[in-house]
């Protein structure tokens, strides 16, 4: 039975060899993740490789990853979302004001925060598809609009720029708990989001539409794909991801800060691009984005175990990003050259 299964599997993949692996979009990210892990294992010592070390970078990676995965879908469809940082802060603040300042039940704050994120995403998508402007500009504008509105409204309502709140035990456990006293529950949420996003991209027909829209929007529209609805839905997804991290942070830190979250804008893009998603859209994988996020987490936290100044982490991330963009182009060429080599052999 198993022999038969292996045989048929082998038969269906006649060209399986190392170059086929090299052509996969996540190959560069795999090399990057393994390389930085080995590097910091040596430079950081046992502090980095023990459970505490793993928790350190996994916690950072999972918060970035919850946003990076839906952002990756936006980018595979050929758009960008720069507003996730402001959305995170605004959602976090919405929850803290409702459930902390006004003393409403935690579930009201959680639902309002998540709805707020989805609403900002819908607005981004609506404006991008209605105006046909680049999503870069539209979401840059909404980043400032949401940031300004959050700051203004918070000062108006609360009179300061931070609000404290304590979540109900149930929400504290599912959003703000430490598993084994080390791992944030965000790690579990990241895994859940990864499964959902993978299903959407690979298993659902919606995933095929995302690739088609990123590949050629006009042709995608001509085949009858509801292009605008898909793009709006993807922005709503990234808004939801940002809001979910907002909720998680509110529970972990027992409150919200107006200035929270801006680092997530570029960190999510770094994770996605290092993960092998092309900036031009149409190509990418969730496994790649997960590995890109892991790479980001390892570099960001590994630096603390080396005894060096943490500023060097930014330098390494910058270099990794540059290397990723360059290799993405190479891998794209490799992937597209699938038939050329065979042709020569004919």
């Amino acid at each position: 039975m198993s022999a038969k299964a292996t045989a048929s599997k082998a038969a269906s993949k006649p060209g399986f060899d190392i170059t086929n692996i090299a052509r996969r979009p996540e190959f560069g990210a795999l090399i990057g993740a393994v390389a930085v892990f080995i590097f910091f294992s040596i430079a950081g010592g046992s502090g980095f490789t023990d459970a505490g070390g793993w928790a350190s970078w996994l916690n950072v990676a999972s918060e970035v990853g919850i946003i990076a995965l839906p952002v990756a879908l936006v980018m595979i469809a050929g758009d960008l979302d720069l507003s996730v940082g402001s959305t995170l802060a605004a959602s976090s603040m919405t929850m803290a004001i409702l459930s902390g300042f006004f003393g409403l039940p935690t579930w009201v704050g959680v639902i309002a925060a998540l709805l707020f994120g989805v609403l900002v995403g819908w607005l981004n998508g609506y404006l991008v598809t209605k105006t046909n402007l680049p999503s870069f500009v539209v979401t840059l504008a909404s980043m400032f609009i949401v940031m300004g509105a959050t700051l203004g409204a918070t000062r108006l309502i609360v009179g300061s720029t931070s609000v404290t709140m304590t979540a109900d035990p149930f929400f504290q456990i599912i959003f703000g708990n430490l598993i084994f006293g080390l791992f944030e529950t965000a790690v579990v949420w990241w895994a859940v989001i990864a499964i959902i996003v993978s299903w959407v991209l690979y298993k659902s027909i919606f995933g095929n539409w995302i690739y088609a829209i990123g590949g050629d929007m006009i042709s995608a529209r001509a085949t009858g794909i509801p292009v605008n609805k898909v793009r709006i839905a993807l922005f709503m997804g990234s808004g939801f991801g940002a809001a979910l991290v907002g909720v998680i942070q509110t529970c972990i830190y027992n409150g919200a800060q107006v200035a929270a979250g801006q680092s997530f804008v570029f960190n999510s893009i770094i994770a996605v691009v290092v993960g092998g998603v092309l900036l031009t859209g149409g190509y990418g994988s969730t496994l790649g984005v997960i590995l890109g996020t892991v790479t980001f987490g390892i570099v960001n936290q590994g630096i603390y175990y080396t005894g060096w100044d943490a500023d060097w982490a930014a330098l390494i991330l910058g270099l990794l990003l540059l290397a990723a963009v360059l290799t993405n182009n190479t891998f794209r060429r490799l992937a597209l050259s699938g038939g050329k080599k065979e042709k020569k052999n004919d």
Partner: protein
Amino acid sequence: MTKAAKKPILRLKNVSKVFAGYQALNDVSLEVYPGQVLCLLGDNGAGKSTLIKVLSGFHEPTSGTVEWDGQEARFKSPKDANERGIATVHQFGGTFPLMSIGRSFFVGVEPTKGWGPFKRFDRKYANETAVREMQQLGITRITDGERLIGSLSGGERQASAIARAVHFGAKVLILDEPTAALGVKEATHVLRIIMQAKLKGIAVILVTHNVSHALTVGDHFAVLIRGQKADDFAKGERTRDQITDLMAGGEAMAELEAELNTLTGTINQIH
């Protein structure tokens, strides 16, 4: 197989298209028959692209009517035209270079398996169908539906796009300059695939400015000049030179040659 015995599947009657004061098409009438290849010839800017866009639902005509299977029809969108059975294949064939053969074959009409929330894209069926349809058009080198479209040769990409149209039951297949970017051998493959589509009873509209390719496969020919139909004839009614002259604008070509003669000596000596 006489034309009188058949009804045109698609007919344009006195179609004009004006863009902001610019007359892209002027009073064009055409008939397209099942199982025939209509070659649409014309120089750059003659209105071929606009005509295709009217036929494939991207533009609605400013005046004139489109008839589908004997009845007046208005194509409100490419999807609308598509659903009736009009498929358009562009110069570079598969338009999604970074998608696999199987995935791009079924863009917008994805096959699914399972039910309810577990309904999912049937990758195996998609890959097998796409490969089988391409092999039926004579592209036997393609065996793996996971290959990316961008890794195929120009002719194979055309074949994948034509195979897609055939599979989804296209009644009219519009091919926009399918051979323009191809080498001699690849172009011949594509012409052979056009003949196979024709034998399946599909009406093929071949847009080209390559007269030899047109003469090889065409049953009927229409020449566009500056948005107007300059000539309309069946196979064998014109010589190759007549067509070339007409496409280049007749008199204008004679003047151009005369001018060239004064610069280079007579061109005729070279021929």
